Each structure stands twice: as structure tokens, then as C-alpha cells.
């Protein structure tokens, strides 16, 4: 697309008139590639290389937007589209607007002004007081008050202190940190420098997972530029303050997003968590006081210093201030990254911004907070999205992953799926997490195979509570959430699997009936050849085929074999196997 645009611009001799800028993520991923044209702010979606010539000749030469490429006709500008209008961008403001590879563009958006202000006009104590007044809480998931954490590190004994940026974003479905690192890397570096000044650190690390090579590249460029310009290095802004940041890469371990595991990983060890206390604030990297915050938290810092704590605290709820970035995914029309004020309801998030569930299906639940988050049903759609409300209802803010599920989802299977993930990623150090998650997984596997008993439900809840309360780190302490929340809100679905041997959503292969949709069947014979018991019956070239329930062993071979999606799964009606 870029090449096509440059060619078209070149053909019309416009290369000096129109500047083509590669920016970070603008948010609505499923509409990509997207193109934003300034100064008027026309927003084009799903552009293709063959559209380039028309955009150049119509828009740039004649001044007429290409209507067929607008998101909604008649609303060419982002602020007129509900997806954007309901958002409030503090952290993502620069993403999709500036060229992340140019520090000059960041500076043009008041970049490093907050650092200058902190260093020259504020004492470290004043910076911390400002953070406390803002009410900012850690965006990595646990929601610990940021100002309090900074004060703890400042107050810790020791001359050498460290600041660590946690960019080991591992939650499936959450990618806000990647978007910030790729779209506005300097905002993270600036936040880290302000934090270092406040807590009295001179060295910093940013730990990025190896799965994000582009983020690593953008950070390397940003670090080099920041050093060259003197906003990192010795005697920053001609003050006594010196600070530099080094990049560290992970190597594929989910648990390293946990702060003590991350520290162990920087030290070159297995990334296993350590018991807390002592907390990193007093005994962190190399046993020294260490401040560790998430990427999104650091990216928020400069806005608080620039606009003032009061302005920040007017956004959000009583105990959750500011904005939060969410990654909308799953069965929702507008997937992508959105930044909203805290306290917005799930309904606004999923329906007003997300556009709701695509036609033909019903909303069933929203899984919020990553793999260790909870599933909330439709009856809780009016719950405000903030740290405390979510945890009251059995979910967590987590890193902000939001997966919308429609009525085709089996909640038992969803819970099993997430638990499989956390059980697999459990580092194995503590028994409750290592053994407990495996026991729960075993029970869930039995239930989805149709071998569950009523006692299993109580046992799941009991083990789940035990894993939550006894695990060493946040991974185990939250891993049972998907199971506990689905047990709480969808008990009937579990019981249908156990007592009726039926999967109401028609998902679990052992607990469904297989049917051939007569109109879709082409008589290709694939199902009959795949079927091991002769249940799939018919004559090649003479559709439709049929499946005989009395011979079927529910292996799903016909379902997998059909090239035309003509074999469907329906909930089993009888309790018989």
C-alpha cells in the first residue's frame, strides 16, 4: 500500500506536497489497513494498493474524499464515528498520529516537557505527591497505587536503585503495550525517567518479550535518539540528574510478566517468581530497591505531570482514576484497541464502542482481564469497568484484554481453554498452582467428555479457592477465575454437561449430535470415508448424506472431514450416550 501510494504521488508530482508517515496503531484493527489524511482528518478504511491512484487523483488533486473508502459514508472524520467519539485518549493520543521513529515528532507533542518540568520545577517529593493525588493505579493488572509504590522505593534504604519498565506483555488478547511501544516509545522512556528522578534511581531497564521484534527495534531507535538529544544520559537538562535505560529481551515465558520472575530473568536466571515480601520496592534487582511499573502506567505519567493531578483525577471513578486501554476481541464488530475513561459500563464498551455482536448471534458473556480474568454474563453488562467493581463480580481488570463471546461459545469449554493455558504456563515452583491447576483441568476434561459428576462442581470450587489463596504469585492467585466465574454465572451449562450429557452450545464433540445440512451437502463422500463406524451414510454424487445416531460414537471425524461445512453439531437431546 505504501509503495502504491508513493508511486501514485510520484506520478502526479506530489511527493513534496504530501508527506506519507508510517504511524503506530490507530485502533480499529479489523478495518485495516487504515489511512488518516490531515489536515482535515479524513479516515479511510480497508484501503488496497489499487485504491492508491484514486485517493491521489480524487482527494489530493481535486479535494474530494473517496466516499466508498470512508468507514461510514458522510462521516469522514474520526471524531464523528462512535468508535472514536466515545473514547478518551490520554495514553494512545500519539499512536497513529506521529512517526514513532522520529523524536522530533514526539517533542512536537510536548514530548519531554514533563521531564523538564519535573527536573527543573519540582522536587522528587513533589512529583510523588502529584502521582498520589492523581490516583493513578498500576495498569499491569493488580492496580496498586502508583504514587504509593514510588514513595516506598524512594523511602527504601540504599544508594543504588533501579527502575524497570515491564513490557513483557503476555496475556493472550492484550496488545496495548505493544501498540504503545511501537507507536509512541518515547512516552514510556519519559515516564521512566520521571519515575527515576522521583525515586532516586540512575539506571533503568526495559524488559520486552522476544515475541515483539518490532517493539524492540522501535525502542532501540528511541533510546539512541533520546541519548543523542540528552534527555537520557548524564546531567539531563543540565541538572544533577543522570539516568539511562537498557533494553532486555525475554525468551518466551509467560510468568516473566510477574515482577519478581521478571527480575530473576534480568539477572540471567530461570524466570521463576520469588515469595513476597520482601517486595521489589526494598529487595528487587540484585537485591536493591527497585521500582517496577507496566508500560501503560509509565506512558500515563507525563500526562499527569503536564496536565496536573487534578485534571487527571476528574476522569474515572472514585477509586479508579484516569483512562484504561482495552483490547477488544472475539465476537464483536469493531475489534481493536480502545482507550476509555474508567467507570464506563461493559455495555458501552461492548455495544457502543465495539458495535455489539455481529448479526445473527446473541451476546453471551464477556471474558475480561486476560486468561486469568472472569466471564461476566449479560445480566452484568451495566457493571462499571473499574478495578473494584470487576473484582467484586469475579473478574479482574488484568491487563485489559476483553474477549466477547456469543451464544455459540460453550462456557465450560471456554473455562477449560483458559485454565489449560495457565496450567501450561505455571512455572511449577509452588504446589497449589502446579498441582491445583492440573487437578482442576482434569475435572474439566472429564466434564467436557461427558464423564463429570455433580460432586465435581463442589470440588472445582474448593480447589479453585485453595489455588487462589495459597499460590505464590499472581499467576496462580488468579488462574481459577475463569472456572469460578463460569461456575457462578453459568451453572446450568455445567449441569447440562454432567446430567444431560449435552453441550447446550453444541461445541464439546462428545456431547453433541451430528447432523448433515441437506442444502449444503454436495454428496462428496468425504464424511462416509472418514467415519470409522459407518454412521455417516450416503451415495457419492447423491446428496444429502445422513448420520445414524445409533452408530455414531461422536468422534467428530465427519465434522472435520466435510469441506463444505455441511456437518453441524447440535446439542444432544437425550441423556443417553
Amino acid at each position, binding site marked *: 500500500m505504501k509503495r502504491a501510494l508513493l508511486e501514485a504521488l510520484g506520478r502526479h508530482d506530489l511527493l513534496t506536497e504530501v508527506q506519507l508517515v508510517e504511524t503506530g496503531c490507530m485502533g480499529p*484493527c*479489523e478495518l*485495516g489497513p487504515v489511512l488518516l489524511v490531515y489536515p482535515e482528518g479524513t479516515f479511510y478504511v480497508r484501503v488496497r494498493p489499487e485504491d492508491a491512484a484514486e485517493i491521489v487523483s480524487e482527494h489530493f488533486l481535486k479535494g474530494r474524499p473517496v466516499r466508498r473508502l470512508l468507514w461510514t459514508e458522510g462521516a469522514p472524520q474520526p471524531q464523528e464515528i462512535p468508535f472514536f467519539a466515545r473514547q478518551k485518549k490520554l495514553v494512545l493520543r500519539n499512536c497513529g498520529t506521529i512517526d514513532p521513529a522520529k523524536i522530533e515528532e514526539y517533542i512536537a507533542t510536548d514530548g519531554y516537557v514533563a521531564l523538564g518540568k519535573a527536573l527543573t520545577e519540582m522536587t522528587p517529593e513533589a512529583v510523588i505527591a502529584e502521582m498520589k493525588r492523581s490516583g493513578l493505579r498500576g495498569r499491569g493488572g493488580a492496580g496498586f497505587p502508583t504514587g504509593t509504590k514510588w514513595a516506598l522505593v524512594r523511602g527504601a534504604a540504599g544508594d543504588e536503585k533501579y527502575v524497570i519498565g515491564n513490557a513483557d*506483555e*503476555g*496475556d*493472550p*488478547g*492484550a*496488545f496495548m*503495550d*505493544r501498540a504503545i511501544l511501537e507507536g509512541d516509545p518515547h512516552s514510556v522512556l519519559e515516564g521512566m525517567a520521571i519515575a527515576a528522578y522521583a525515586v532516586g534511581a540512575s539506571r533503568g531497564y526495559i524488559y520486552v518479550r*522476544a*515475541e*515483539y*521484534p*518490532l517493539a524492540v527495534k522501535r525502542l532501540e531507535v528511541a533510546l539512541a535518539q533520546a541519548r543523542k538529544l540528552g534527555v537520557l544520559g548524564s546531567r539531563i537538562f543540565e541538572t544533577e540528574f543522570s539516568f539511562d535505560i537498557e533494553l*532486555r*529481551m*525475554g*525468551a*518466551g*515465558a*509467560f510468568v516473566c510478566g510477574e515482577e519478581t520472575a521478571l527480575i530473576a*530473568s*534480568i*539477572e*540471567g*536466571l*530461570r*524466570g*521463576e517468581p520469588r515469595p513476597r515480601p520482601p517486595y521489589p520496592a526494598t529487595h528487587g534487582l540484585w537485591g536493591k530497591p527497585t521500582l517496577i511499573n507496566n508500560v501503560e502506567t509509565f506512558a500515563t505519567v507525563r500526562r499527569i505531570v503536564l496536565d496536573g493531578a487534578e485534571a487527571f483525577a476528574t476522569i474515572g471513578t472514585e477509586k479508579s482514576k484516569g483512562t484504561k486501554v482495552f*483490547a477488544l*476481541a*472475539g*465476537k464483536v464488530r469493531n*475489534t*481493536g*484497541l480502545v482507550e476509555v475513561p474508567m467507570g464506563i459500563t461493559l455495555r458501552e464498551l461492548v455495544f457502543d464502542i465495539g458495535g455489539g455482536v455481529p448479526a445473527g448471534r446473541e451476546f453471551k458473556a464477556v471474558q475480561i482481564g486476560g*486468561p486469568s480474568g472472569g466471564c461476566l454474563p449479560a445480566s452484568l453488562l451495566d457493571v462499571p469497568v473499574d478495578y473494584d467493581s470487576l473484582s467484586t463480580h469475579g473478574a479482574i481488570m488484568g491487563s485489559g484484554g476483553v*474477549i466477547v463471546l456469543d451464544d455459540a461459545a460453550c462456557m465450560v469449554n471456554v473455562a477449560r*481453554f*483458559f485454565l489449560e*493455558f495457565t496450567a501450561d*504456563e505455571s*512455572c511449577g515452583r509452588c504446589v497449589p498452582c502446579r498441582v491445583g491447576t492440573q487437578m482442576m483441568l482434569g475435572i474439566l476434561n472429564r466434564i467436557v467428555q461427558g464423564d463429570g459428576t455433580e460432586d465435581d462442581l463442589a470440588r472445582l470450587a474448593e480447589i479453585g479457592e485453595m489455588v487462589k489463596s495459597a499460590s505464590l504469585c499472581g499467576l496462580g492467585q488468579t488462574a481459577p477465575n475463569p472456572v469460578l466465574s463460569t461456575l457462578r454465572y453459568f451453572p446450568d451449562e455445567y449441569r447440562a454437561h454432567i446430567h444431560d450429557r449435552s453441550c447446550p452450545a453444541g461445541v464439546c464433540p462428545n456431547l453433541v449430535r451430528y447432523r448433515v445440512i441437506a442444502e449444503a451437502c454436495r454428496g462428496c463422500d468425504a464424511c462416509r470415508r472418514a467415519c470409522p463406524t459407518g454412521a455417516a451414510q450416503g451415495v457419492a454424487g447423491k446428496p444429502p448424506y445422513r448420520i445414524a445416531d445409533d452408530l455414531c460414537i461422536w468422534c467428530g471425524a465427519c465434522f472435520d472431514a466435510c469441506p463444505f461445512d455441511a456437518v453441524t453439531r447440535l446439542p444432544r437431546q437425550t441423556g443417553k450416550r
Partner: protein
Amino acid sequence: MTKDTLAARYPRSAETLLSLLHDLQRANPGNHLTPEDLALAASHVGVPTSLVHDAVTFYSMFSLTPRGRHIVRLCESPNCHLAGAWSALDELRRLLDVGVGETTPDGEFTLELTSCLGACGVAPVMMVDDEVVGNLTPDRVRETLARYREGR
């Protein structure tokens, strides 16, 4: 670049161990770490080889057995799962004629699964070496592998 000069670029501190291991692994045609690499890394950063071995076996991106010239990592997280990662996996298995964790006989590709690549908006997603390829369909899988086979 010899491995010694490669190591010399890093300060002699355990905090550079993972970065050094990444570089050593990349320097081997088999995309893996040899016993000599572990010994070199250990002596460079000043820790026992057993500790390096301990670390290497913890992280999924390090391998002690030779792998292909290109590593194909398909995302197995929920969003990709919901978006149909398994039809992409079927196509990968079929085209490469190997299972997950295996290497093609010609030594070109190793097929692996990975946790979330953070590109959920374009799920299902895979990563070939350092390139992220999204919106996977069997066709797109085919094109991508062909591109790497031709060395582009």
C-alpha cells in the same frame, strides 16, 4: 563473526546472559544452542554452566537440539483459536509434512506453537523468524512458506 567476538560485545555480567544466548543461538545454522555455547556463555558472564543450562531449559525460545533455518510459530492463544488457527495449523502440517516441534527433513523449517503475539486484531497470526503474518488462511500460509522457500 566468531562467537568469542560476539560475546565480547556484552559486559561480563549475568544480566546480559539472555541477550547473549539469543545471539549465540542465531549464529548457529540450526537455530539452537550447543554445549560449547553454554560453556562460552557461562565463562563470559561468570556463572557455572549448570546455571546457564538451568536458564536455557526454562525459556521456550531456546533449543538444545538443532532446528530449521526458519522457525514458524503459530499463535495458539484464544483469539487466534476462535479465528480459526487450526485450519492454518492443518495447512502448515500438510505443507511441511511435520508435526508441531518437528523440523522438515531439508532443514528449512521448524514448526512451533507460541503464546499470544499481540496481533489479535488480525488473528489468526503466525510468526516466521521475525516477521508477523496475520489474517491467516490456508492460501496465505502457502504463499508465505513459498516466499521463504525462495529465500525472499
